[in-house]
Each structure stands twice: as C-alpha cells, then as structure tokens.
C-alpha cells in the first residue's frame, strides 16, 4: 500500500494532488473526502479555524492507522493532507484519498480513517471569531 501524509500550513491544492494520483492496474475505485471549514462553530459565526498539532505524534498515529488499514483492506494507496495553522472559512482543512480495487473497501477505509483520526491523531482546532481584536493566538507549538 502506498501512503503519503502531508501536514502543511499551505492551502490544499486538490487539483495538484489529483494529478499525481497513483493508479495501479486493477484498481476500480477512488474515494476522496474533503473537509471544509464551516462558517459557524457551536452556533457562533467564525472567520477561520486555527489548527495545532503535536506533529511528531500526529505523524506516528497516522502511520499506525495506515498500518491497520493495510491489514484490513486491499488498498493500493492512501493519501492524507491536513492543514495546520489558520484555515479560513470555506477552505479545506483535510483531504483524504483512497484507491482500492472496489468501492466497498474504498468507502469503508476512508470513513474508518477519518473516524479514527478524530479519535487518536493529536490535532486540535480553535475558532477564530469575526470580531475585531479577536486575532488568532500564535500557537506555541503549532506545525
């Protein structure tokens, strides 16, 4: 299984990732997920989310999940991009792509990975509000 993990403060360029997709012969299904910053958080209007990671552990935990995926499903490729730092409303914060022989395993693996990520990968977010003066705090340990 090919695996590629990118934790980045740069915008996610979906088209660029798509152009580099590994697509081995015999693969019949690609499932992509894009998580986009919504304009409200717990009912309040926000301007952005600021993501912070414990990067070394986040990378390790993602690779543990990839190991587990590889055992569970016949996946050819998994690629994950997660934004860190400030991500504005309507921008993607997460991009996940699974390439597999059939759609059943591609959907199952993609959903499983996102669910598990939200359980174990040490990344946190805090809302950046629209009010003047409520500038994002500079994270002491971000990216």
């Amino acid at each position, binding site marked *: 299984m090919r695996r590629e993990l990118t934790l980045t403060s740069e915008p996610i360029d979906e088209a660029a990732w798509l152009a580099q997709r590994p697509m081995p012969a015999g693969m019949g299904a690609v499932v992509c997920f894009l998580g986009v910053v919504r304009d409200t958080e717990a009912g309040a209007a926000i301007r952005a989310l600021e993501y912070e990671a414990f990067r070394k552990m986040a990378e390790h935990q993602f690779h543990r999940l990839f190991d587990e995926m590889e055992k569970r499903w016949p996946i050819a490729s998994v690629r994950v991009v997660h934004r860190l730092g400030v991500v504005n409303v309507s921008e993607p914060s997460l991009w996940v792509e699974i390439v597999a022989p059939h759609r059943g395993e591609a959907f199952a693996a993609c959903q499983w990975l996102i669910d598990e990520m939200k359980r174990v990968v040490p990344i946190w*977010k805090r809302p950046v509000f629209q009010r003047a003066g409520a500038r994002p705090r500079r994270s002491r340990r971000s990216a």
Partner: protein
Amino acid sequence: MRVSVSFFSYFQDLTGCAQTTEALAEGSRLDDLYRRIVGRFPKLAPLEKSTLLAVGVDYQPRDYVLRDGDEVSLFPPVQGG
C-alpha cells in the same frame, strides 16, 4: 529520575506553559506523574476524564511505568479534520 511534560491545545492556557519537567521516584507510574501535575496545575483536575496521556508518540495507560527521560504529553480530546 526526570521526565518532561508537554501540554497541548487549551491545556497550555490552563497551565500557562507549554512544557515543564518533573522529578519522580524510580518505578513511578504515569498516574503518579498525572497526580503531581494536577497538584501543580489544579485547573486540569476537572478535565481528568477527558485528558489524554502519551509517552513519546504513543498513548499509554495510567499504570505505565515511567523511565528517566520519558517525554510525557497531556492534552484534551483531539479534534482534527
């Protein structure tokens, strides 16, 4: 022995720091360290049930036996995605 302790996310706000160190008796467990930390930073106490504890880059249970130089991290539930 000495271990380092890092805080992430709003645990940094509650403790007022990103990192500290603790000196512990040999054979101390992660829970012993946690009690010591909560003693120093009481604002963490109400969050005990949701607090996540890692040593190095792996989660560990409270009865994990610490070793000199371990890098311990405390943080609230993760929220990626």
